[in-house]
Every structure is written in structure tokens, then in C-alpha cells.
């Protein structure tokens, strides 16, 4: 039994921290903040290539496809350190599409897409959700008609973030129109510059943008389909077990800034941090962050043993995102009236960061599977309770 990092892992953490210190600019952090993701801007494109050059984008992939043949533990460490630095890595190409292509794609597809993904040269956008298919992904019905050497696509996607800046759409589309819903879905790579694609912005309450995407007679070559036709839903469900995770340190830095604020802010002649109630609340957050960390690294541990986390991944995602929201709420309580001051206001504590996170954290328990869906999974797979 061992809860510590291995020597190489501890060394890697140091290396990553050094890299972050040297390579992260305030412009990059600002850009990421504006866009809601470390993707799409000029700064990010440069940064990702530097990360890719070290193999740190896809360390667990085989060397043949641009990886380091390293462990998931390493991937998880890097992602958590980056999240701590304010640059949570949620690359669709490296973490969603790439691993699926690696597992289920043809050799041709692997050769075409994996090395540039590993180098950080191309980015995908996630194309699952539709207006009528949110939690119930199998209800998606964007049509992909088989036209011999290509598919012809018509329909609409919803909340497809980064489609306006990414190179490719990682698309789930309906290829079989009768029979059970989940037996008629296929996955394909679509060039987002294809004629017939219209992207319309949807601005979130956090200020950053996601999109609606309309497909109007869009031609997608057959070779861009991943794996077998009509098996897409199974690939997707399998992939979710591998992908689902939330780097807990994304909110750890924020928590530490709230702690510093409580220490430095004197109210009625004593620092806020000496208020017993505030001490209790901050300690509770520190504890919950510790719990999140254990759940998080558990996933890497399971993956490295070539086992599949299923309910554990759901538990980690649910728990860590709910902790994220509690941290924001606790922070707001600590800041009191000041908590509402936005970035740019001269009196805004934490440079308005909490006001922003308070808004943006709302979505954490919704996307990538809502907390309710995660609880269903925990109960059904973790405890074997019957489906309703």
C-alpha cells in the first residue's frame, strides 16, 4: 500500500512546475480566461506546441504515434499542475478524440491524426450534444446519409465549444435511421472548413463562447469515419469511462487565494482568518480538496493497471465539480459585499477572479455528464442497483 508518488513522478512534477514558470505568460492566462479554454488563440497555439514538443500532451501514447510510452499517472500529474497554473488542459484532440482513435481507429487514421495531435498542431471540437440530445446522447439525430464514398450530413449541433477555432469536428452522427437509437450512431472527423457548415455563437454567463453548429449538405469522406459504422455509441460509452475526470487543482489556486485574502484582510481589528466560522469553512474546503485529489489519482492508478474506472470516474467528476462550486460559495461568504466586484473594479479583491469563477463554476456540474447522470452511474455500476 502506497499513497506517495514514485521518484520519477515527483521529479516530473518539479519539471512541469519549472516549465510552467518559464513558459506561461500573463497574456496566455488572460487569453485562456477570455476564451474559456486553452485553445483557439495565438498564444495558446504556441504554448501547446511547446507542450507537445516535450511529449507532455500525450505522454501515455505509444512512441510510434508521438507519445512517450509513459503512464496515465504522468498525464494526470501534468493536467493537474496545469490546472493549478490556471490553464486546465481540456484538449478534445489529445484527451477525447485521440484516445478513441488510438483504441478503435484504423491504422490509416492513426497515422494521419495522432502524430499532429501529439505535436499540438491540430485541435478538435467535441460534437456530441444536440438540442434534443443532451444527457440522452443516443437521441442525437444529425443525419449522415451513406452516399457510397462519402456521407452527406444535415442537422444541428448544440453547445459545441471551440468549433469556431478548432480544425476538426469530432462528430457523433446518425447513420441508421430505424432500429434502436443507440445502434445507429457513427463517429467521424469533419473538417470544420467544409462547405455547408455554419457556426453561430452562444455566449455563456461566464462570458466565454460556445456554439450552435448547422450542417447543410456537408460532404464527409468515408475514410473519416472512425471504427465501424453504427458502433459509435458503444465507442462513446467506452470512452467516457476513460475520459471522465476533473483536475481538482483548477480550484485549488483559487482556494489558496481566498485563504490569503482571509489572512490579510483585517475586519473589526482582527484578520478574517481568526474568525472561528471562517476557519471552519476554509478547513472544510481544504479537506474536500484533499479528498478530490485522492479520487483523482485513483483514476490514473486504475488506468495504469489496465483496468477501467467506471463508477470511480463518475464519482471523481461529480465530487470534484461539486467541491469547486462549494469553494466558490465559501469564497463569496468570506469576501462578503466585495465578492460581487468584477475584474477591472479598483476595489475588486483577487482581481475579480472569484466573481468570475462564481459564475463559471455553474457549468462544471452540467457538462461532461451532469451530476445526476453521474449519480445514476455510481448507483447502477458501483452498487448494482437495477435500472429504473
Amino acid at each position, binding site marked *: *500500500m*502506497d*499513497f*506517495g*508518488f*514514485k521518484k520519477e513522478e515527483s521529479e516530473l512534477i518539479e519539471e512541469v512546475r519549472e516549465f510552467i514558470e518559464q513558459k506561461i505568460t500573463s497574456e496566455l492566462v488572460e487569453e485562456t480566461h477570455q476564451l474559456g479554454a486553452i485553445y483557439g488563440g495565438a498564444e495558446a497555439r504556441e504554448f501547446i506546441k511547446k507542450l507537445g514538443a516535450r511529449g507532455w500532451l500525450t505522454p501515455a501514447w505509444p512512441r510510434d504515434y508521438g507519445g512517450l510510452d509513459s503512464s496515465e499517472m504522468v498525464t494526470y500529474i501534468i493536467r493537474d499542475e496545469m490546472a493549478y497554473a490556471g490553464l486546465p488542459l481540456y484538449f478534445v484532440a489529445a484527451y477525447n478524440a485521440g484516445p478513441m482513435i488510438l483504441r478503435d481507429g484504423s491504422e490509416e487514421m492513426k497515422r494521419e491524426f495522432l502524430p499532429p495531435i501529439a505535436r499540438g498542431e491540430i485541435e478538435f471540437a467535441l460534437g456530441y450534444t444536440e438540442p434534443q440530445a443532451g444527457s440522452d446522447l443516443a437521441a442525437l439525430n444529425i443525419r449522415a446519409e451513406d452516399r457510397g464514398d462519402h456521407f452527406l450530413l444535415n442537422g444541428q449541433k448544440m453547445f459545441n465549444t471551440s468549433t469556431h477555432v478548432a480544425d476538426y469536428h469530432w462528430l457523433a452522427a446518425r447513420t441508421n435511421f430505424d432500429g434502436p437509437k443507440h445502434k445507429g450512431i457513427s463517429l467521424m472527423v469533419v473538417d470544420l472548413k467544409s462547405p455547408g457548415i455554419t457556426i453561430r455563437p452562444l455566449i455563456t454567463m461566464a462570458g466565454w463562447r460556445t456554439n450552435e453548429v448547422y450542417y447543410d449538405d456537408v460532404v464527409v469522406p468515408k475514410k473519416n469515419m472512425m471504427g465501424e459504422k453504427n458502433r459509435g455509441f458503444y465507442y462513446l460509452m467506452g470512452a467516457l469511462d476513460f475520459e471522465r475526470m476533473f483536475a481538482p487543482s483548477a480550484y485549488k489556486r483559487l482556494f489558496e487565494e481566498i*485563504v490569503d485574502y*482571509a*489572512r490579510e484582510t483585517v475586519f473589526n481589528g482582527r484578520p478574517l*482568518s*481568526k474568525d*472561528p466560522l471562517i*476557519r*471552519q469553512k*476554509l*478547513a*472544510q474546503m*481544504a*479537506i474536500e480538496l*484533499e*479528498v478530490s485529489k*485522492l*479520487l483523482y*489519482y*485513483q483514476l490514473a*492508478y*486504475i488506468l495504469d*493497471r489496465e*483496468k477501467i474506472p*467506471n*463508477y*470511480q470516474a463518475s*464519482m471523481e467528476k*461529480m*465530487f470534484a465539480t461539486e467541491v469547486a462550486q462549494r469553494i466558490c460559495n465559501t469564497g463569496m461568504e468570506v469576501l462578503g459585499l466585495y465578492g460581487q466586484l468584477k475584474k477591472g473594479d479598483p476595489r475588486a479583491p483577487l482581481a475579480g477572479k472569484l466573481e468570475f469563477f462564481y459564475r463559471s463554476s455553474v457549468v462544471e456540474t452540467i457538462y461532461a455528464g451532469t451530476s*445526476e447522470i*453521474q*449519480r*445514476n452511474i*455510481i*448507483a*447502477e*455500476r*458501483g*452498487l*448494482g*442497483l*437495477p*435500472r*429504473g
Partner: protein
Amino acid sequence: MQKEVWAFQGDNRMDYDLNEEQQILRDSARSFLAKQCPGTFVREMAEDEKGYTSELWRKMVELGWMGILFPEQYGGYEGSFLDLAVLLYEMGYVCLPGPYFSTVVHGGITLLEAGSEIQKGEILPKVASGEEILTLAWTESGGSYAPQEISLKADLHHDHYVLTGTKLFVPDAHVAGKIICVARTQEPAGDYEEGVSLFIVERENPGLTVHVHSTLAGDKQCEVEFNQVQVPGENLLGELHMGWPVLQKVLQKASVAKCAQMIGGGQRAIDLTVPYLKEREQFGRPVGSFQAVKHHCANILTLLDTSKFMTFQAAWRISEGLSFEKEASMCKAWVSDSYRQLVALAHQVMGGIGFMEEHDLQLYFKQAKTSELAFGDARFHRELVAQQLGL
């Protein structure tokens, strides 16, 4: 050592890549206790004056459980703190009554931390062989583990000390042979942590009276009155006035040990509940298929899994000789709240039957509260965490 803690079994249950001896210990404890300590026995012992049977005590001695933590030279097995945690988990799983915890954890760990060679040489082998039952008398009328609480006085008279005061919530003092008593040997001048000392007191000592409290879980916690109790100078445990740092360590280790019991109890609460929910039908379908019930269950499993992680992390750190103060307090705070919440949720999903005395779930409801209160509840430990955070 490999990083082997995050392992899982095929049946999706968290297991902790225990080493071979730990697996043997766990399996043998599980089957032994299932036979020896059914729910009926737990209820019987709650009513029983002593609270345990000599027969079961002897069997536990034969299994080597008393000396699990002690060095070989004291008749022990030199087990690690993790080994102890594995055993306590199984004891928690069956709600084992009796003075094992007070003897091995309260008494044993305090002696290991502070005892002289002579004291350890005299007492620990007797504990290992089952002849000696120990406990630790710490809390007083304020009902807290804080240093301000210690007001029982020990005055030096030539070659002995005279102890006067009252201790409350002392586990198993009514059957203990020796009581380690926390006393004040110096009036506090600002810092309450100074001037606290520990004494080994024979329960048979004249001037010492024990009353057993009537408690929620029927475990035996006692009021111990010290009326001019004379204790020879050599019974001072550790350095004079320097007892508090020892107690802090004992508190942290005992907290983690308590959590090991609690997660065992939490596992049992799930084992008592979930299979029932798959069988029990209402409205023509298993109640476990209703989403309101399922989401309670998802929360139960989350509370349990996270409690296991926090406990095994802290126990592992203690075993490895790493710093453990922060992790231990985080652990006790988290598990205290979680265990109580998870049993409460288990009751909710069981419906009326879980409320019946004859159903075992209620034993765990009570165990949860008792354990939460022992060695400081969540609020108490959160304050320690706040201190660790430099607040």
C-alpha cells in the same frame, strides 16, 4: 514499495492492495468475528455490566491481536499501523464491543509514545498476553479534548503524586487494570499546553471510584473520580509537564484508528442495505430502482469510498513514518461527518424496517455517533486543520 493502494476488485469494491499478511489477517478476522460477534452478541454486551466476555477476549489473545502493534521484545508482533487499521476495520464491521480499542489504542499507543523501557517492559507483555486491560482518562466536565480542559490536579508529595479531580467519558475504566490519567502538574500561565503530565494509575487504588455512564450505543464509558489518589513517582509516564505533545500524537493516531473502525462500519451499513433494496418491491418494482433511492445510494457510496481513501492515506503515512498531523485531522473530520451521514441515508432508504431494534442497521447508527464524538468531532479537527493551514 509499489504504489499499490488504488486497487479495485472485480466486484467493483475498493480494496487496497493489502499485502499477503494483511489479506490473511483481514480474512481470518472477518470469518472469526462473523461467528463470534453477531448482532445479538453486540446487543447482549450493551446490556452486560462488563461489556465483553472473557471467553472472546481469550480467543482474541490467541489470535495475537493484543500485541499487533508492539515490538517483539514486549511479546508483540511488530505489526504496522496499517495492520492495526485492517484489524480495526473488521472490528468496526461487526461493531465489536469490549475494551480492545481502549487497551491497544488508548493505552498501548500512549505507552509506546511515552513509556520508559521499564514501564513498557512491565506492562506491554501483559497486554499482549491478555492479562492487562488499559485505558486513558483524558476528558473532563467540559467534554472536550482541548488542553484547557485538563484540570484534574496532581501534586507532588515527596516521592509520590496525589491526584484529585474527575474524568468523564473514560472508555472501559470499569474493567481496566491500569488507567493512564492526564493531569495538571502546573497551573497554566497562559499556555494550557504546558504543565500537563501523564500518570499510570492502578484502578484498584483506594480513592478511585468508577461509574459507568449510560450511553447511546451501550459501550462502556465511565466517570472516574480521583479522590486524593496516591501514585508513586515512578508511575509518571513521559516527562513531567510535557504530556501534551504526547497526547497530541496519541490523539491523531487514535483518531485514524477510530476512522478505520468507522469505515468498516460504513461498509457494513452498505452491505445491510443495498441487497435489500434490490429485493424489496413497492409499486411493482424494486425500491432500489427508484432514482430518489439510487441517488441516496450514490451519495452513500461516495461518502464511504472517500472515507476509505482518507483513512488509508493517513494510516499509510503513520506506517511509513511520514508526517501525518494534517492528514490525520483531515481524515477524522471527513470520516466523522461522512459516516454519520451515510448511516442516516442508509436508514432513509431502508424504510421502517431499519428503525427496528432487531435490525442491525441501528447498531451502526449508534456506532457512528459515538465514534464521531471520540477524539474530537469534525468541528474540533477542522480547527486543527485550520491551524495546519497557518490560519
